[in-house]
């Protein structure tokens, strides 16, 4: 079959991203031709400000070099402006007469800077700020001239002004409105911004309207005159008063435009063969000027060009971050407010911190922050997710709790960190290398940064910091992934929830069935989705679905914890942290027999035998003659206890006995992640119940149950769920809570993440208030556990897993 022809007019970020997305879906569907009016391949336009500021060179901001176009067999016409579209014959013509035929045409003509229609606008030294050409003109002017005037106190104008000042010019920013960045900031935060820019040497003239630009004999601008008659000298005038979608070509071809090329939710114009994305587009009446929405459009458009036909673009919420070194400013959503909204404000003028949150119907709809923007991504995520914040409203303004986030010297603000400071303590990545990778590799998402630098790719505790660094480096181009629509992994577009729903409703009993029914894009998944699917299938259809050991991580296949040298550790179960002299003797004998040099008491009140060869594991288990401690599994680990009322002079309840009962009832329970339980016999809480997935505390009149605590990566204090009278009730409530978590959490989410997502109120509703539902949940858990076997018992061992071959 003959290949279809795709022609793209415009060679900017939105267009090339669309091509990249499309090539991922269908590498061979089209012969592709690209026309670019500029003489450069696709470059990172948002990095022009750092180039102007002298922090980067042009060659550093090229995103797709010429080799990329060649590799994908793309015919590239640089420096050729397309001037005519012949829609009837499906042809486009460039200025120099170059002609190309299309079956599909993609218009990505971007936008033009708006030039004020004042006398003198055509004088030399009067420019917009849009591309490499403008940037070079400014750099040249800075070398030769003294006085610069930037018209427009918005994002772009301030970045231009800052760059020119850094290059030694005397810069005045002229703005028609009463305060700077009025579309992104309110009056208070704008005042703080202005003050700190003034300390950097910038001057401001607010509420000033330009009358005309005055020229000298040589045809170059010399001054700017205002409506009020005043005048200041100017050798360079940068107009940064906004952009206008570049629709000239589309309009000349008779394609419907209305402040942008009008497209539907599939990015199709009124001509069905012609698509458009980027700043030239008007979608549902809105034209976007930030990169993140343009990438969203590109993804949708690629999907339709590839004839998949399932994606829709429904508009974007945008955020802004000013890329001026040393100034921390963030805004997102609708922060101006109206009669239906409420505001929470913190204003510390002396400390230079300002935060405003705008809420409507218990949801966050907008945020402005100045001076301390470390929680910007967190707020933005909540705005995008439409999360109900009623429960956390009282401490919302103070940001995300960073309690116990370790591995980066207690830092929670990326801006305050020097380049050489370590951000990711797991992989030893410092701030400078992250910034460098973002700029050099053209990274825009957290996933991309993780892939290229490994920062936050292991334990993830520094994710917030990495997001901040990303946001401040790429500015408005950064958008956190929408939580509710985040795909499971690269093998599917579906979310965890959608996959789980299909597994249970369609009675999908095996991983291949799931992958076939849900059209997985890979033949057998990846190391990320396979263990998740295996768990989901088993959880939805207990005692019916068959386990697939090849889809389990090695620890759950070998029933030991793999160590850095490839040996395994063995931790036998000690019910409620209790043991006997006979068990200890057997452990000692095993240690001698297998030359185990490292024996360690764990934090979960058990004994860890380290350095055991895989082939010895079944023999070690046999000699120990103790059940598996599941210390390697996404399953119930340990129930930690204090000695309780039987011995302790303060104890009011028998915590050891309850701990043993809980462990006996729940051991062998697999879950989305590991589960830890503790029982303390009095509120002194010696078993540390406050940081466990389920923490039980004995009081004179019964037991208090706390849930969703965490002691690891994200230290989080458990929240009170309910108080009950008897041990039997503790079992039922704890079991029901854990079954809810098992059925609804995403694989690898701990209870803390799950409860943060659904809210404690929801959990209480399902487990505490609805008694019938609680009994059903607990019943389902008991049913699922009936068939689970001890993986260390001789009859359950798959010998082949542990046998090696020889030549």
């Amino acid at each position, binding site marked *: 079959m003959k290949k279809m022809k795709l022609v793209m007019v415009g060679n900017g970020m939105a267009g090339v991203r669309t091509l990249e997305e499309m090539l991922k879906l269908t590498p061979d569907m089209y012969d592709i031709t690209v026309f670019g009016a500029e003489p450069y391949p696709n470059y990172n336009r948002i990095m022009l400000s750092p180039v102007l500021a002298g922090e980067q060179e042009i060659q550093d901001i090229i995103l797709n070099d010429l080799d990329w176009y060649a590799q994908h067999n793309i015919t590239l016409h640089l420096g050729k402006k397309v001037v005519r579209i012949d829609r009837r014959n499906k042809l486009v013509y460039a200025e120099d007469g170059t002609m190309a035929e299309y079956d599909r045409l993609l218009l990505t003509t971007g936008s033009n800077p708006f030039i004020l229609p004042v006398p003198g606008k055509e004088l030399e030294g009067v420019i917009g700020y849009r591309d490499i050409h403008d940037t070079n003109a400014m750099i040249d002017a800075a070398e030769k001239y003294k006085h610069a005037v930037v018209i427009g106190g918005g994002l772009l104008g301030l970045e231009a002004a800052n760059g020119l000042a850094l290059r030694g010019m005397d810069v005045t920013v002229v703005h028609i409105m009463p305060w700077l960045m009025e579309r992104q900031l309110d009056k208070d935060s704008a005042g703080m911004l202005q003050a700190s820019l003034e300390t950097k040497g910038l001057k401001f003239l607010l509420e000033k309207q330009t009358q005309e630009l005055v020229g000298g004999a040589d045809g170059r601008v010399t001054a700017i005159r205002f409506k009020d008659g005043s005048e200041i000298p100017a050798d360079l005038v940068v107009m940064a008063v906004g952009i206008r979608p570049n629709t000239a070509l589309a309009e000349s071809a008779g394609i419907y435009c209305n402040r942008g090329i009008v497209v539907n939710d599939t990015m199709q114009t009124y001509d069905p063969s012609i698509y458009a994305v980027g700043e030239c587009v008007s979608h549902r009446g809105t034209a976007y000027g930030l990169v993140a929405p343009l990438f969203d459009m590109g993804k949708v458009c690629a999907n339709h060009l590839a004839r998949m036909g399932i994606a829709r673009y429904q508009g974007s919420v945008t955020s802004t971050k000013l890329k001026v070194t040393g100034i921390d400013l963030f805004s997102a959503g609708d922060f101006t407010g109206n009669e239906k909204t409420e505001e929470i404000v913190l204003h510390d003028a002396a400390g230079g911190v300002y935060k405003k949150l705008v809420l409507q119907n218990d949801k966050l709809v907008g945020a402005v922050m100045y001076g301390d923007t470390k929680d910007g991504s967190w707020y933005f995520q909540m705005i995008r997710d439409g999360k109900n914040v009623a429960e956390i409203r009282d401490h919302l303004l103070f940001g995300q709790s960073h309690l116990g986030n370790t591995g980066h010297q207690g830092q929670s603000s990326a801006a305050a960190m020097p380049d050489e400071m370590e951000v990711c303590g797991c992989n030893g990545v410092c701030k400078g290398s992250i910034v460098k990778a973002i700029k050099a590799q053209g990274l825009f998402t957290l996933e991309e940064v993780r892939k*290229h630098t490994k920062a936050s790719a292991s334990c993830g505790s520094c994710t917030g910091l990495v997001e901040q660094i990303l946001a401040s480096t790429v500015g408005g181009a950064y958008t956190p992934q929408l939580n509710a629509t985040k795909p499971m992994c690269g093998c599917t577009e579906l979310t965890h929830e959608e996959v789980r729903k299909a597994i249970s409703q369609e009675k999908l009993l095996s991983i291949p069935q799931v992958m076939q029914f849900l059209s997985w894009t890979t033949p057998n998944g990846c*190391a990320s989705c396979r263990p998740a699917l295996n768990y989901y299938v088993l959880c939805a259809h207990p005692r019916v679905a068959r386990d697939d050991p*090849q*889809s389990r*991580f090695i620890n759950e296949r070998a029933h030991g914890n793999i160590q*850095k040298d*490839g040996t395994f550790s063995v931790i036998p179960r000690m019910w409620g942290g209790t043991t006997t002299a006979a068990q200890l003797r057997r452990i000692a004998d095993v240690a001698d027999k297998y030359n185990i040099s490292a024996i360690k008491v764990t934090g979960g009140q058990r004994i860890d035998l380290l350095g055991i060869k895989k082939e010895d594991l079944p023999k070690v288990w046999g000699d120990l003659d103790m059940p598996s401690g599941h210390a390697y599994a996404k399953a119930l680990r340990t129930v930690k206890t204090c000695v309780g009322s039987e011995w302790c002079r303060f104890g009011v309840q028998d915590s050891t006995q309850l701990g043993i009962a809980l462990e006996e009832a729940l051991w062998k329970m697999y879950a989305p992640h590991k589960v830890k339980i503790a029982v303390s016999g009095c509120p002194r809480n010696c078993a540390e119940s406050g940081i466990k997935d389920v923490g039980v505390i004995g009081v004179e009149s019964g037991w208090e149950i706390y849930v969703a605590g965490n002691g690891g990566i994200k230290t989080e204090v458990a929240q009170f769920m309910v108080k009950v009278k008897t041990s039997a009730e503790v079992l039922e409530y704890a079991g029901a809570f854990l079954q809810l978590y098992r059925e609804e959490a995403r694989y690898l989410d701990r209870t803390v993440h799950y409860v943060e997502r659904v809210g404690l109120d929801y959990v209480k509703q399902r487990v505490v208030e609805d008694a019938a539902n609680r009994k059903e949940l607990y019943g389902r858990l008991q049913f699922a556990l009936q068939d689970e076997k001890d993986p260390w018992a001789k009859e359950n061992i798959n010998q082949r897993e542990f046998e*090696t071959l020889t030549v």
Partner: protein
Amino acid sequence: MDNWHQVTTLEDIPLLGSRVVVTEQGDIALFRTGESEVFALYDQCPHKGGPLSQGIVHGKKVTCPLHGWNIGLEDGQAVAPDVGCARKVDSKVVGGHVFLKL
């Protein structure tokens, strides 16, 4: 001079799984893909020496169990952006018997 040695049968390598062959030159990981193709690599991840044989096999790749690097089974090359190579061993399947060239 390298010769072909029979080490096991196709059936004795689990589908999407692996076996370890102990040799004088070191352990060799023998993989079987979902389509029953067989590949062999020295059992050391180019990153930090993790035992590739213990990883999850998907497509024609294996994910190292220690730090999650993906290694191509056909050539032992790490999947970008990671860089490194595990040494490859020639293998073949004849009549259900698996041979290594050693």
